[in-house]
């Protein structure tokens, strides 16, 4: 499954809830304000890094760029564009939005 998270982890619990319920082998894509979950050194960074063995974490590049944080992303988070987002939706058997 591809999970999308679109809200900042400092605003809503969507990212944390997603990390707690995503099965092994899932993909998690941070989009919109959700890309703040990719910030290195934040209060949730350890939780995000901790999930990276079990799941693959991606961030939407245009959203990182818009917010000026493309250079501060946790190592190992893969940055994709909208075409990459579409590919992820195809490669995984379904998509779930954590709103």
């Amino acid at each position, binding site marked *: *499954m591809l999970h999308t998270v679109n809200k900042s982890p400092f605003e809503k*619990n*969507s990212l944390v*809830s997603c990390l*707690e*319920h*995503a*099965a092994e082998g899932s993909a998690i894509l941070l989009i919109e304000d959700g890309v703040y979950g990719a910030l290195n050194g934040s209060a949730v960074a350890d939780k995000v890094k901790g999930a990276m063995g079990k799941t693959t974490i991606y961030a939407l590049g245009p959203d990182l760029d818009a917010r000026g944080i493309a250079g501060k992303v946790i190592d190992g988070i893969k940055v994709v564009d909208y075409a990459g987002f579409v590919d992820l939706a195809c490669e995984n058997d*379904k*998509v*779930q*939005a*954590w*709103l």
Partner: protein
Amino acid sequence: MSEGTKKFLYVNRKAPYGTIYALESLEVVLIGAAFEQDVQLLFLDDGVFQIVKDQDTKGIENKNFSPTYSALGDYEVTKMYVSKESLEERGLTVDDLMPLTYEDEDDDWAEKDSIILVSKDEIAALMEEQDVVLSF
């Protein structure tokens, strides 16, 4: 499950009344019932508040739509998964929830509980089993 039906999961993570998502997602469930797919509801995070009993909306002059959850059994929506952890985090138990039931036509119309308490891991597995996941 008959050939050609899909497993639909409706994920409810938001509280009622503060926003319209709970009400309008329920409207999708009702309409969706006519399509005879394999439907399950999940109440997770603040979504568990949607099915707390004794809702009284007179003071806020808002429609009390909580009775609709009790009617879902008649629409063959009989699987309502509720996150144990979400209840605990909110100081709730299953006794705080509406007694949602359905009549099992395969068991002489015996009344059965629609609410199924599930752990995080069970929720992860439930999500993976689905074909279509709707979020509101």
